[in-house]
């Protein structure tokens, strides 16, 4: 395996808008909001940005194609700007592009920014799109909850888990995120919700109820990355560094070849294994202090805990019910509320996850602050369980 980029890239500034139903602002305003906070945090001027990667997954919803909407919004003058799109893993993909540019020595300072303006669709849930004129001839048009709901039945069948027990564990996932979201000032959904309400909510896609599904939001998040040397020069004595960023994409094996049991997301496992190796993490259960994972649906988070190696296969429901991933648990998950409550403006989510870990590592997470926060993991999942792009990033401190 290649040496990787561990500690070759520092994050010197981050910004994140309030996520939610941002009727008041367009995609350009969201990007400016996140960018301005990141610049202030980094303590640099806009002119220091050598290159930028903008992540935006659903370009037809009021953002627009290409790099130009971001270049226009941020008035980046003759800067190489690249738009990236990798479904819901887009935010981390933008960070990966910026980080690789710095690590390669091609640029000194790079911007990663993700944005989505979903509430201009006019309806709840993600917008509908063609799957391409060829796939449209055969591929079903399931909704996002419809695709991820299928993890539940397959998981229950694979591990012999009672459907009621699984539903309660899923409900605990959402309950926990609502508890955390209530402490997160920029979160979309800030109300705590009791278990009965979660368990008795209307079904969206069997067995997922309303509270098993994350919020669909407007928002943007940004990161400014540079070399550790420049970070120190900017006054960041012990900067947050990227320990690893790894990505894995389906080649059709899950949905076309008859071996996958439907109870896990193989790309998460592949990306995590490579990220642990890149970061030098041998025992993630002991070494990771917190995770921000792609909890688009409660069952997704449950399965991710196993895919990341934090629970044994078949044990995630029990670990969840034991509180391992609660705020005071051994490895808290979604301290900021996660996709579930912080919200999910698709192109921004991967960077929003990094924003929470970045703040936790620097002791800036307010009421949510974890006492020990040396290593944090973000997991960003695009597509569906059977056709996915999984991105795993690990952040820590340089020293």
């Amino acid at each position, binding site marked *: 395996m290649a040496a990787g980029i561990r500690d070759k890239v520092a994050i010197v500034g981050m910004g994140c808008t309030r996520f939610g139903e941002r009727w008041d602002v367009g995609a350009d305003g969201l990007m400016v909001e996140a960018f301005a906070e990141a610049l202030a945090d980094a303590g640099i001027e806009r002119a220091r940005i050598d290159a930028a990667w903008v992540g935006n997954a659903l370009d037809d919803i009021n953002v627009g194609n290409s790099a130009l909407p971001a270049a226009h919004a941020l008035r980046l003058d003759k800067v190489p700007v690249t738009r990236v799109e990798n479904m819901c893993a887009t935010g981390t993909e933008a960070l990966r592009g910026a980080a690789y540019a710095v690590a390669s020595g091609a640029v000194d300072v790079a911007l990663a920014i993700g944005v989505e303006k979903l509430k201009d669709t006019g309806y709840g849930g993600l917008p509908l799109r063609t799957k391409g*004129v060829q796939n*449209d001839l055969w591929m*079903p048009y*399931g909704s996002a909850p419809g695709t991820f709901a*299928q993890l539940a*039945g397959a998981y229950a069948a694979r591990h012999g888990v009672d459907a009621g027990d699984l539903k309660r564990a899923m409900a605990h996932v959402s309950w926990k995120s609502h508890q955390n979201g209530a402490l997160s000032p920029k979160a979309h959904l800030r109300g705590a919700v009791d278990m009965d309400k979660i368990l008795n909510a209307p079904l*969206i896609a069997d067995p997922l109820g309303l509270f098993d599904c994350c919020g669909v939001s407007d928002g943007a998040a940004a990161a400014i990355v540079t070399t550790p040397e420049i970070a120190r020069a900017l006054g960041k004595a012990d900067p947050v560094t990227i320990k690893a960023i790894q990505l894995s994409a389906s080649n059709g094996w899950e949905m076309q070849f*008859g071996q996958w049991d439907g109870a896990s997301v193989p790309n998460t496992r592949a990306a995590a294994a490579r990220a642990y190796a890149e970061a030098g993490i041998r025992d993630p259960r002991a070494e990771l202090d917190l995770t921000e994972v792609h909890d688009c649906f409660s069952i997704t988070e449950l399965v991710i805990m196993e895919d990341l190696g934090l629970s044994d296969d078949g044990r995630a429901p029990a670990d969840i019910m034991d509180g391992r991933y609660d705020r005071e648990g051994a490895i808290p998950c979604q301290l900021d509320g996660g996709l579930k409550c912080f919200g999910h403006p698709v192109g921004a989510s991967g960077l929003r996850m990094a924003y929470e870990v970045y703040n936790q590592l620097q002791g800036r997470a307010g009421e949510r602050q974890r006492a020990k926060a040396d290593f944090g993991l973000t997991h960003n999942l695009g597509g569906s369980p059977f056709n996915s792009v999984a991105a795993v990033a690990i952040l820590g401190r340089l020293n």
Partner: protein
Amino acid sequence: MAHGITAVGGYLPLLRLDRKAAARELSWSGLPMPRAGTRAVAGWDEDALTMAVEAARGLMADAPPAALRFASTSAYFTDRAQSAIAVDALALPRSTRSTDAANSRRAATGALLDALLGQASEIVTAGEKRRTQAGSAAQLAFGDGASAVRTGPDAAARLAGHATLSHDLIDRYASQDHPASYAYEERFVRDVAVAELLVPAIKAACADAGIAPSALAHAACAEPVAATWKAVARALGCPASNHCESVTAHAGDLGAAHALYGLGLAFAAAQPGDFVLLVGFGSGVDALVFEVLAPVPGAVDMAAGLSAGQPLTSYSRFLNLAGSVDLDWGMRSEFEQKAQATVLERIGRDMIGFVGGRDSLGNVQFPKSPMPVNPALDKPEVLEDVRLAELEATIVSVTADRLNYTPDPPFDFGLVQFDNGARVLMEMVDRPDGGFAVGQRVRMRLRIKSQNPRLGFRTYFWKAAPLARPQLGEA
């Protein structure tokens, strides 16, 4: 061996509406409604073509037919041959002659007569899903369904005689400006149909067969209005029961498919040596007399099909499926697909034929791809065609999606695994009472995949359905 009918097939959609319950919903109006029996109701994604293909699926035999004739008065496309689409859906050679017969409920019997007179091996398949107006008697009297006949040598029933009368008696009609069937007074229709069309034509067909009408053991006579056969039988001195009445009672008037479905029931009840009458009605009469030589393959299954299905208890759901109400499904329903002819030309045959590919190591995949999905292969190769439509599969994962727009929620879909290795993400149809479950075995059904009403186009693909249907209780 004699040339004639070698096999028959039928298809009825899953749902059955209790006419009495439906009529009760309209009792306040005082409108006259048929109240006896049930009506077969097609799914939103079924049309005359999909059902006609389903009816013909069991008629493939050892060798493909020389021709496929499709008959319907409700075919979706008016300048795109349903028969040519069916050739691909049934994976028949493109050298198969294809013809659409339309514009009369008699289209199927006329096509069958032509096939029989041509002494060729052919498939005649008829499907019907007619537009009706809420409140009309026709909406409850009609049914959706299909029937098919295979002709060829080594027949189980031979054509003994026949007669045709072309007579523009307007018992009912549909037109471009009035696509829902418009019916005239029943007593007028019955009197004229019996005296001027049916009795003369049946007499002539029996004479051609060299038998008296009293020698007919069974009849399959499509009646323009109820009790027509009773009057015909009295006039002819014919004791045969009319099996089309069973179709009407259990499934409804299937239009162009009606007489052939009744013929299947007649064959199921007949013994070798019996004479069976087939009558198609509409703008005239086709009367065909068959001598049964042996049990007719497929006939018993057609009879069994009448009693299998699922009660449709919601009248408003029926109105929705029948296209009689225009519900506001919200913004998600505004999503529009446009199929491209270039893509259909490139891969459409694999789609509607559900043809996957076998790689050099024996694994099958769908769709085919230049680079096999099999991880053991790392070079491009040409995959061998494998038809999946006739195979069973097992559900790997599934959900009932209640967010996604579908005209008849919920939207069931998931991964299904074929025993030959192919794994396909598929929609599921004919939802059982308890829904679908992981591990359940499924079979494939041809359905509408997408429709674009604005552009007047639809595409077809296969969907997974339970292997068997539940038995209906007594209606």
